């Protein structure tokens, strides 16, 4: 800080503390008159003081006496309150959280907005953007830039979970355990599922847990679509399922979803994020890796083949997508690669073992870390500069192996020098330069009698479906962290291996289990057995989890298009989604090349809606489109509200929600024509639904 700056700031400080002498005041005023910088600093500083006053609970003795007497809850002047805490939620500009920079929902919404505009052609009143004045002088929408008259609608407290019982589907068996298609080795599937059911049932008895009721169709269809494809169903998709009278409709939907290409994409997104994170390092071609993974899942290639290809990949990273994984982690003598490989493929946390033995588990020793690390010692990253046809240059990488051998040195905690050769699961290499270490690793993995790779995948997949795995955390398996259901885990692991690492079948087994048909609501008796409260999961229900940012993005797209009666359009590419999600990501610089995702449950709602402007433009458009649809011309307000709730949370509005809607409609109509009031009330409800925790959870 320069001395000039210091001077003005010191003066400003004295001003705030009311300690300005006459001469200092003169000096202050001189500086303000002659220096723009001083003026700005002064204002900023003084306002900082004001902010601190408010934060500290100080309130000026200022509101007129009449105001104090109303029921608004305004306190008598002088008492320590901060009435403007309510202002936090004013308007549709929700909380902006400094930690996450300015979030732009642009990518999603602008495209949606432009699509809607295109589709509506020469719009009418309701489809207008911006503040069009109508002939009666009222504005089309509430203004930005200010405090709105009405608070946004918060629906969480009103969320009513559907408890099936009066539902027609309740009487029928939720899942038919019979064969699904002809010709496949089906009795195996049924056997596996039956075994899962048996073992879980035992577990419920042992833990005195009684399982939740069967989930309603509404709850289940949303869960299924989200779990498989990473997005909520469109209204049409949900209705199709709910209306179906087939006794095996759940089984049929599972099959459809297993083969749905969006399921392959969803898995590919999940694994791309696991393998190389979301923040994108320079030179790494995330798109190429995604394409590789998507292909593997779409063709249902065996999981161990995918793992092996990732480990032994060679070639240019723009041509051989799988090389991008290791290329991202070969820094620091491949120590991150070692840690990440162990975490992702074995669900073992080894990074600390770089420096010392595992604190609690015997058998996981420092040596083993370096023995694994040694497999990556031949891997080499070569930069290549390409000249493109248009004359620009592009930097790519080649992953290859150098012909070298020898031991890997490391130092124990007490300063001893040790040396190891590549070794895994009892198989050791000789260290000769001609050995292809990474190739050998893949062979050792396949031969692993512990089936580490299979077990890890089972744990991950189970957690994906149920919201909790057999261990917590799921990527920390080992003797120090025994699984909750060892026999079940073994069964599934063995079945997975014997099926030749068939990912689809694994998903099918889990999806068709009796437990996965159940509601996520909590029965009285089950309340303690909640993994989120540190209790052991017994899978007496599906544990709800928050959506990932990618799921949120896709689901908002679906919801908004459903409301606006637009068909689902897959042309909005993953590049936009990546950009949007990227804003929540912050890279850490640690041994595992980790990153943090500043996107957790509650926060995510606020962050999502941060760039209120874009959402504010999209809401009127899609509600406008809904109102204009010919089939809605004669529909009641209540029916329109139902369309919103179906589009977002796949159920009918609760009585309470309907009440909120009618109250809002009534309030608004006291100050504007009814059609506008209806549109605004519907927009507010749509906003409320999108912001609700029910929307953003998978349950």
């Amino acid at each position, binding site marked *: 800080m320069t001395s000039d700056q*210091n001077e003005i*700031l010191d003066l400003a*400080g*004295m001003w705030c*503390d009311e300690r300005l002498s006459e001469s200092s*005041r*003169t000096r202050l005023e001189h500086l*303000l*008159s002659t220096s*723009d910088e001083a*003026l700005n600093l*002064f*204002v*900023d*500083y*003084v*306002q*900082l003081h004001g*902010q*601190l006053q408010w*934060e*500290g*609970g*100080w*309130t*000026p*003795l*200022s*509101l*007129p006496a*009449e*105001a104090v007497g*109303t029921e*608004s809850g305004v306190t008598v002047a002088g008492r320590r309150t*901060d*009435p*403007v805490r*309510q*202002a*936090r939620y004013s308007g549709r500009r929700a*909380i*902006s*959280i*400094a*930690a996450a*920079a*300015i979030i*732009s929902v642009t990518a999603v919404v602008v495209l949606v907005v432009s699509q809607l505009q295109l589709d509506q052609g020469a719009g009418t009143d309701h489809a207008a953007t911006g503040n069009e004045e109508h002939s009666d002088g009222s*504005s089309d929408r509430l*203004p930005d830039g*200010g*405090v709105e*008259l009405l608070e946004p609608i918060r629906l969480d407290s009103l969320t009513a979970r559907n408890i099936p019982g009066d539902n027609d589907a309740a009487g029928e068996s939720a899942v038919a355990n019979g064969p699904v298609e002809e010709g496949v080795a089906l009795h195996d599937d049924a056997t596996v599922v039956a075994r899962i059911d048996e073992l879980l049932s035992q577990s419920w008895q042992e833990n005195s847990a009684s399982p939740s009721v069967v989930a309603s169709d509404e709850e289940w269809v949303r869960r299924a679509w989200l779990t498989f494809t990473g997005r909520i169903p469109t209204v049409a998709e949900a209705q199709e399922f709910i209306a179906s009278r087939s006794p095996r409709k759940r089984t049929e939907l599972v099959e459809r979803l297993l083969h749905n290409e969006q399921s392959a994409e969803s898995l590919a997104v999940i694994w791309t994020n696991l393998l190389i994170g979301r923040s994108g390092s320079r030179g790494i071609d995330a798109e190429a890796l995604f394409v590789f993974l998507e292909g593997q899942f779409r063709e249902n290639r065996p999981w161990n083949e995918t793992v092996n290809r990732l480990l032994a990949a060679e070639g240019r990273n723009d041509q051989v997508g799988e090389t991008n994984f290791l290329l991202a982690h070969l820094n620091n003598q491949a120590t991150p690669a070692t840690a990440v490989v162990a975490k992702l493929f074995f669900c073992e946390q080894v990074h600390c073992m770089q420096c010392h033995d595992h604190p609690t588990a015997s058998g996981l020793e420092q040596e083993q870390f370096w023995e694994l690390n040694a497999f990556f010692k031949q891997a080499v990253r070569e930069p290549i500069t390409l000249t493109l046809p248009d004359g620009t240059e592009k930097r790519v990488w080649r992953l290859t192996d150098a012909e070298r051998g020898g031991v890997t040195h490391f130092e124990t905690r007490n300063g001893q020098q040790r040396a190891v050769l590549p070794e895994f699961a009892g198989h050791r290499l000789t260290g000769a330069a001609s050995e292809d270490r990474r190739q050998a690793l893949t062979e050792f993995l396949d031969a692993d009698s512990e089936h580490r790779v299979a077990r890890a995948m089972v744990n991950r997949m189970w957690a994906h479906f149920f919201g909790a795995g057999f261990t917590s955390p799921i990527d920390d398996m080992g003797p120090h962290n025994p699984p909750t259901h060892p026999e079940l885990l073994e069964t599934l692991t063995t079945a997975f291996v014997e099926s030749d690492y068939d990912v689809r079948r694994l998903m099918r087994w889990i999806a068709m289990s009796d437990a996965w048909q159940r509601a996520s609501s909590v029965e009285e008796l089950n309340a303690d057995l909640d993994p989120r409260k540190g209790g052991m999961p017994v899978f007496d229900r599906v544990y709800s989890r928050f959506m990932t940012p990618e799921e949120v993005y896709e689901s908002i797209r679906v919801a908004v298009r459903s409301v606006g009666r637009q068909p689902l359009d897959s042309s909005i590419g993953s590049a936009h989604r990546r950009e949007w999600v990227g804003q929540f990501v912050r890279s850490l610089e640690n041994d595992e090349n980790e990153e943090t995702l500043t996107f957790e449950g509650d926060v995510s709602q606020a962050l999502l809606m941060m760039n209120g402007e874009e959402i504010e433009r999209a809401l009127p458009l899609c509600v406008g489109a809904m109102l204009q649809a010919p089939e809605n011309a*004669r529909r*009641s307000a*209540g029916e329109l509200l139902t369309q919103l709730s179906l589009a977002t949370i796949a159920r009918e509005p609760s009585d309470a929600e309907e009440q909120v809607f009618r109250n809002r409609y*009534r309030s608004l*109509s*006291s100050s504007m024509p*009814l059609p506008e009031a209806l549109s605004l009330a519907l927009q507010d409800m749509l906003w409320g639904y999108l912001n609700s925790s029910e929307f953003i959870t998978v349950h």
Partner: protein
Amino acid sequence: MAQHEMTTELDECARQDAPGEDFVRVLTQSQRALYLFILPLVSSPADAEEVLQETNVVIWNKWGQFEQGTNFLAWGRTIARLEVFRFRRSRYHRMALLGDDVMERIADRSEASSEDLEQRRDALSHCVGQLREKDRELIRQRYSGDVNGDQIALQLGRPANSVYQSIGRIRKTLLECIRRRMAMSAGGVR
């Protein structure tokens, strides 16, 4: 219920006559922004309080002139500016006055930085979290009660000057931190 029926039902709702809950709520919600707007325009925080009070009285009495659907804060600030002007004329006639043009510039800057209050508030929250324990405690003491530096100095057994200097230093640190965070956010905008 058919839309037509609902129309009839709502037509019967009475309009409000006096400043109702909604108006009071929005007035309450804008207090902080108004205060922060007024603060740099007067001679001391105590004066700002008074001007805010005068402003509120005018807003209250003129509530009927406020056009629903327009920007309340902008309207409130217009009134506040007038009250500042009136206040200065009546109070500061003995003191060297800043020229109108300077006042104008201060008002513009003040208005601009009270636009992104939420962001500043969150930046402040973050920055306070970054302070050293001791510093944070001192700021807390200074701002959580009706205490000034002298009283704190008495409590802590330190010379008043030293306490004021510490508080000033901490505020400078906070300001720097906040400005940096605001700049970062601005840079991140699409």
